[in-house]
């Protein structure tokens, strides 16, 4: 009877500790997820910024200006 009581107390205590650990793990996971999402968002933002820069640099008007500049430089040389 007594042994069963001790065992029950120990098992319950262990279970509570495990529950606490699981909850803490959940918090950590949510935190890690949030960090990851923020990184993804930041990367996406950077990607968009780079895409826009590429688009500006490769626009027909920019290309024709650069080609004309390169031609005139070559002619001068």
């Amino acid at each position, binding site marked *: 009877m007594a042994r069963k*009581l001790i065992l029950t*107390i120990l098992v319950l205590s262990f279970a509570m500790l495990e529950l606490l650990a699981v909850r803490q793990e959940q918090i950590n996971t949510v935190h890690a997820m949030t960090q990851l999402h923020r990184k993804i968002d930041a990367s996406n933002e950077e990607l968009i910024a780079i*895409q*826009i820069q590429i*688009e500006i640099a490769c626009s027909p*008007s920019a290309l024709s200006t650069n080609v004309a500049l390169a031609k005139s430089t070559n002619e001068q040389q």
Partner: protein
Amino acid sequence: MSNSNVRTIRVAILLAVLVTGLMGASIYKIVSLKLSPPAQLLAATVTVNSTSRQLAIRGRILDRKGRILAASRTGFKLFIDPSIVEDFEMISFELGEILSMPPAEIEQILRMKQNSRYVVLSSLLSKEQVLAINTLSYRCLGLEERLVREYPHGDIGGALIGLVGTEHTGLAGFENKYNNKLTGESGKFVRSRDSKRNTVWISPDDFTPKSDGDDVQLSIDVVIQEIASTCLLAEVKRCNAGGGRIIVADPETGEILAMADILNPREGWSQQPEDPNRIIDPRLGRNRCITDPYEPGSTFKPFIWSVATELGKAKVDEILPTPTNGPYKTKSNRTIRDAYYYGPSTWEKVLIKSMNSGMAIVSQRMSYVQLQDAVKRFGFGQLTHIGLGGESRGIITSPANWDEYTQTSVSMGHEIAVTPLQMVQGFCAFARNGTVPQLQLKLSTDEDVMFVRKAITPEIAALTRKIMGKVMTEGTGMRSQSEQYKLFGKSGTAQLPRADGSGYFDDRYIASFIAGAPIDNPKLVVLCVIDDPDKSIGHYGGTVAGPVVRDVIEQSLNYLRVPPSIDYLANASR
């Protein structure tokens, strides 16, 4: 009971008492803290919930090849809470350096709005400024995320694409038309903060994820748009015109590849095309290719010519009594003038040489209803339903007011006003099998059902195209003929109507040219309208607008890798 059993029971009871005591103490502490927390603790542990918005990124507007025409990125604006500023001078000095603003100005703003909780100091910070602000440790400063709309190609197709307002909603052009599709749904989450405003918890239950807006892909091709805009601008400047409009379309699919509208205000000229909205922002301007009808002049002749031929009102080789010297007189004694008098000419020559007299003669053989039907067949007087706001139906004389004067005028492209878009749509019938396609500005997919309307038979379409090929080699389009590709087209020169309705200017014109290429398998249809060119420089459609159409066709077909004509290749290989 043995000694060991007794000991075990005692240990168990002790443990049970200990655990129960600890739990009881914990519960007591929790209850007491909840019911009557100490003032010091209360001050330190106040939890503040704040709802944060997660900005949804507005969708991109792409051209037909996936190039970005408009895209949103996140930026930051700087705000300050002046009510908790401790040292106005110090913060103004530090912010002045970062924002490149006079510190005195910042201090004045802060002192004036001392009781405000939210004052925006900069609506958009650069990357460097954001980094610099982050190094400051003022509690009163805050960075707020905002969306910034970027247009990487500048003003190319600006009026078509439109723009967004401060709330990032579309105000004009495609930004406005596809606003619902482009706009996403912002997310939100609730932060639990401690007394130092640090986030301690974000509950997953209070989190609504954002949903970014969808992209919209247009039929516009940036390269062709650039070609069209550049060629048009150069010609408008060269002939000191009041403005110019150009449309490039793919007749096969009805997709618009480029559309540009330029205004060129000139000093000392009366009645110039104007648009007050463009002064506010060029992207807010109306798109005159859609909104402003014009008198097409001789570019309208192929439409009437083809229907008259289909109805059997004249045969291609039939010789008509066109005048040798001086104007032609109609049955009602109306005088019809030609640019040159060729004497009796074939119906074919009437179109090639753009003879008003020949058109008047055959139009008199048609009934009013037949001519009105000819106009309707190609979609004139009706909306193209392209989807942009402010579209005009054009101006067509009502059947009740239609008389013989109208009958002869319309056959020459007078007493009728059409939009450039309607002209392109109608002209596509000659580049196809006689059907008029539904024009579109959004990229079509294979699954899209194409709506067409029959205007003329395939045989008549091919015949008219062939004769318009001769316009380029023997007629009014000679100066606009391309060396590389065989074009078919028609020029038009109409007098500029007076705005007050008192007739036409004697020496001011609207020059236009419409053409398609290559003649055997048309890939492009291009219309150019030059508004009110300086007559001393040039005013005929064939000499002013024609070369623009030729250049745009040549450059665009080269870009689309359409091989030049066999004749050109043979000459080039010699």
